[in-house]
């Protein structure tokens, strides 16, 4: 259930089976009595006020109108949730000056947009919705015509149906009309709700919603990015890499067949080149998304990095089971990048990698006993990690005083 307007544009069967037509109908149906009621209340108040305006009482009565308008708008805000289910029921408390907060009657003055909504509600909206609801009775009558015709002739929008055969013939027409009107009803409800929302939502709320939307799409992008990397890795692994291994096997067999001589030397050279290509490919794959991470998760993959490191690494990994793939990948590349840095720059004798989970957050730290003085801004590797963690709402910090030790730490929430 994303939103009604997306559903309208989607697959018809899915739309009709969804809750949206019913929510829209509920919205339209409730608009009629609500709009009518407010129209009557406001007309009464205004006319009483106008009639008694020569007395002071009339002014007091008229002063109540903005309060009523505000209440009407608050009601509309609540009803919006039928079309936008994710919305908060109340207006988010915007930071205002303290004088207002201390007031006993916090904020009962209507704004101009609220007045606009109330005018629309009491005039255009309920009338339009009532017309649509009346039109909706036509397809319903057509559909039940086969039942009604038993008890006599029926008249539908100037159309006379008096035999059972005719009644069965018009029923399909009723179905088609019903579907069309469902679309019309949803479109009307969406249009009204969008207009009301646009008028009522303060700019901050619209911003907050946009930020929420952005955050969702950013997480989605990171997911898509990681999925794509895994796909590329799989293609390389199942395709090129298998072929290269097969090639080295063929060349290896050829070496056994050939007599010593220039031919054998060339085949040996080709074999070495193929192995070099395989090694290069393996390094590339490791940088994209290592297979051991996909298959066995973070702990196994970190073991593998530590095993390849030229500096001895102590591991303490309290991470059982699997984590979300994006988090695993971020943590893997964090460890990989930092151990590479340790080997390259730190002149360290050993390094330690700790990983544990606390309050639904993965924490990984890499500490070395090297010379320190690492510059967090140096190198694109750490910057890339920073961006990756940022997108996952994680954090990265480095402490590296001159003389060491260097500690790099990442935290990443596990959703």
């Amino acid at each position, binding site marked *: 259930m994303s939103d009604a307007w997306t559903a309208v544009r989607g697959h018809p069967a899915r739309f009709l089976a969804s809750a949206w037509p019913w929510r829209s109908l509920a919205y339209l149906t409730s608009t009629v009595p609500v709009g009518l009621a407010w129209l009557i209340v406001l007309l009464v108040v205004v006319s009483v006020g106008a009639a008694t305006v020569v007395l002071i009482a009339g002014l007091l009565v008229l002063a109540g109108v903005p309060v009523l308008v505000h209440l009407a708008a608050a009601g509309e805000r609540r009803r919006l949730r039928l079309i936008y289910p994710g919305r908060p029921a109340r207006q988010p408390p915007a930071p205002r000056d303290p004088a207002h907060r201390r007031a006993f009657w916090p904020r009962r003055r209507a704004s101009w947009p609220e007045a606009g909504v109330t005018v629309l509600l009491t005039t255009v909206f309920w009338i339009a919705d009532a017309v649509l609801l009346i039109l909706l009775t036509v397809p319903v009558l057509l559909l039940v015509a086969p039942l009604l015709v038993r008890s006599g002739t029926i008249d539908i929008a100037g159309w006379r149906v008096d035999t059972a055969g005719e009644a069965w013939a018009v029923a399909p027409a009723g179905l088609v009309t019903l579907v069309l009107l469902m679309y019309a009803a949803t479109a009307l409800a969406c249009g009204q709700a969008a207009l009301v929302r646009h008028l009522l939502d303060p700019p901050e709320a619209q911003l907050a919603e946009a930020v929420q939307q952005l955050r969702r799409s950013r997480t989605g992008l990171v997911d898509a990015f990681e999925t794509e990397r895994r796909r590329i890795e799989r293609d390389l692994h*199942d395709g090129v890499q298998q072929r290269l291994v097969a090639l080295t096997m063929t060349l290896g*067999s050829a070496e056994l067949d050939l007599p010593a001589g220039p031919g054998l030397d060339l085949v040996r050279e080709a074999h070495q080149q193929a192995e070099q290509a395989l090694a290069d490919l393996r390094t590339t794959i490791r940088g994209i998304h290592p297979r*051991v991470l996909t*298959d066995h998760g973070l702990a196994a993959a970190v*073991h593998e990095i530590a095993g*390849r490191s030229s500096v*001895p690494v*102590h591991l303490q990994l309290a991470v059982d089971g699997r984590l979300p793939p994006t988090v695993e990948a971020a943590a893997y590349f964090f460890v990989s990048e930092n151990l590479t840095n340790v080997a390259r720059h730190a002149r360290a004798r050993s390094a330690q990698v700790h990983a544990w989970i606390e309050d639904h957050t993965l924490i990984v730290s890499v500490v070395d006993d090297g010379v320190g003085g690492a510059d967090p801004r140096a190198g694109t590797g750490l910057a890339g990690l920073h961006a990756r963690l940022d997108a996952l709402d994680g954090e990265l910090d480095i402490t590296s005083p001159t003389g060491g030790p260097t500690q790099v730490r990442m935290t990443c929430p596990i959703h």
Partner: protein
Amino acid sequence: MPDPLTPPQNALRIVVAEDAALLREGLVRILERAGHEVVAAVADAHALLTYAGNCHPDLVITDIRMPPTHTDEGLRAAAAIRAAQPDIAIMLLSAYVADAYVGELLDSTPGGGIGYLLKDRVGHVRDFLDSIDRVAAGGTVVDAEVVRQLVRLRRADGPLAGLTEREREVLALMAEGHTNHGIAGKLFVSEAAVRKHIGNIFAKLPLDPHSDRRVSAVLTYLRGSPSA
């Protein structure tokens, strides 16, 4: 070194399990050219279990990672074969080093020979065939790269901390399945020196006195993961 193209004295009956068709065909070709008999070449663990049960081969060569989950089907199938028919030698192939495998692998001993090689090794046809012979003869062969990574991980703590650099080298070569003679050749020292190093290793490691000390030392070495 024997010429692998003449049929070996001990032609083996082998079942091969590998899901990548190219590699499976390559393996079969290499093995058959070396004079072995490939009784079945299959693409998944289920078929491997069936053929290993029915054909009773001398040796099973299996990829660790196979469908459907692509994690450790081959390893689990190997463990099942080991439990049912302990005399069948097993050679595991892996695309990468995952040291969790080594522990599981060694827990499945005793029984026939066992080996763990990286797939790249198959291209070194002569060495690969040699490893197969050693495993079929009851030996343990662990890939040099796997051993190298384990040494790095285990240097700092664990039972190996007391060993000298040279003793660790000797132990690593023992784990790869080399004889004293082979180790002496690799390290350019005399066999007597190798025996002396091995004696020191046995003295320093907490070994089970009731089992073969050489095997026990290798197991201590391979198992002693500080994080396992």
